[in-house]
């Protein structure tokens, strides 16, 4: 294995593009090093992107935030303004692993690891975040929901790297939330994860919403019918029931040791309601 730590995207992209064998991007390494250790991957080249400034910064841009792909969970938590504007995204990232893992784990890595159960991904999708991707053909912005295709499969071309995430500006009474269900209190992988972002008008009617579910399909889902169930409502009981049903209908889960299909579908509906309730209460305060 060869280790490279370029200081520019041009260098990083060139290294990844030129390597004919298996090449991996290293951000926090909390997934990659485990996979190397257990021989799931055996890269010839590892490109550490943490020496590239953009990957490690949180900056305000266009009324929103640009968050580097290699910013750690601990750093997200310590960024007071980001946390107050996008609490759901930060809380989702902070659910990943232990204090030690938070010291290293990144949202770029969480997305590129390609797990359907990645905690930060539904929160980013609900927030309407875009991934800024750099590659041999330059830079492009892609909605986060379009990055992952299937377990361990991404839509990135050879040589492409996620540089940062762009969280959009928030208008008026908009707020996000993320919940995951696990059978213990800490340190587990989602049975179901749910991100909700919604906007209220002056009368408390929901004018826009995005609902995303994780761990219930081959990739994290943006569930438009679930958003439609609450748009135009005050999120009363009837709307919450429709949200529950729409979330359940979107699920295509597998049975595994964390839960059966039926269980995941049921939990997805409950979690969607609970997450929407938190987003609602936050939006009312904004």
């Amino acid at each position, binding site marked *: 294995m060869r280790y490279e730590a370029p200081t520019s995207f041009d260098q990083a992209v060139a290294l990844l593009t030129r390597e004919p064998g298996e090449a991996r991007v*290293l951000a926090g390494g909390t997934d990659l090093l485990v996979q190397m250790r257990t021989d799931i991957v055996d890269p010839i080249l590892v490109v550490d992107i943490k020496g590239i400034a953009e990957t490690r910064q949180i900056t305000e841009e266009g009324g929103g935030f640009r968050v580097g792909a290699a910013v750690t969970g601990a750093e997200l938590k310590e960024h007071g303004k980001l946390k107050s504007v996008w609490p759901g995204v930060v809380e989702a990232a902070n659910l990943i692993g232990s204090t030690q893992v938070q010291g290293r784990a990144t949202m770029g890595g969480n997305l590129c690891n390609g797990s359907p159960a990645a905690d930060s991904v539904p929160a980013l999708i609900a927030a309407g975040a875009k991934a800024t991707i750099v590659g041999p053909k330059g830079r492009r912005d892609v909605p986060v929901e379009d990055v992952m295709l299937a377990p361990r499969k991404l839509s990135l071309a050879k040589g492409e790297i996620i540089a940062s995430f762009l969280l959009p500006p928030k208008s008026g009474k908009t707020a996000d939330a993320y919940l995951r269900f696990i059978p213990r209190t800490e340190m587990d992988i989602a049975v179901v994860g749910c991100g909700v972002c919604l906007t209220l008008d002056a009368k408390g009617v929901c004018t826009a919403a995005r609902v995303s579910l994780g761990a219930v399909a081959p990739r994290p889902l943006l569930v438009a019918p679930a958003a439609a169930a609450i748009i135009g409502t005050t999120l009363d009981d009837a709307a919450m029931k429709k949200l529950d049903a729409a979330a359940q209908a979107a699920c295509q889960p597998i049975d595994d040791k964390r839960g059966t299909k039926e269980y995941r579908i049921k939990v997805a509906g409950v979690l969607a309601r609970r997450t929407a309730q938190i987003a609602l209460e936050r939006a009312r305060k904004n």
Partner: protein
Amino acid sequence: MAKHHVTATVNGDAVEFLCEPQETLLDCLRDQLGLTGTKEGCSTGDCGACSVTVNGRLVCSCLMLGVEANGKSIGTIEGVAKGEELHPLQRKFLEHAALQCGICTPGFLVAAKALLEKHPDPSETEVRYWLAGNLCRCTGYDKIIRAVMDAATEMRGA
């Protein structure tokens, strides 16, 4: 494959070592630098036995490449006591019998020290959550939590 030349600071001392690119920081601390206080438990980031600080940030040294330590300041269990004088956390672990086999203890001490430097007055819940990534199969955790709470009280001078 060429070895990497790494220069870093460990417990305040400048160090340099050669490492293979795939070697973890844990391997480098133990095998290159002879600092065997940091323990290998699971080697997959689940147990916290290999906890160290990197530029003040608590991490699992098994989840970081040694070459990534270049230019960084590393803190290990060997830097917790001042010479013969134990750190309050170490004394309280002994007083409360917060260890049995001891394999997890260096990781718990490094992690707890990082917590108390950040939050000198944590609640019991905060201590339990902070230390959720440190596994102990002997004590049942209660003694560890009591030792950390007691050390925090002493360190605040309360």
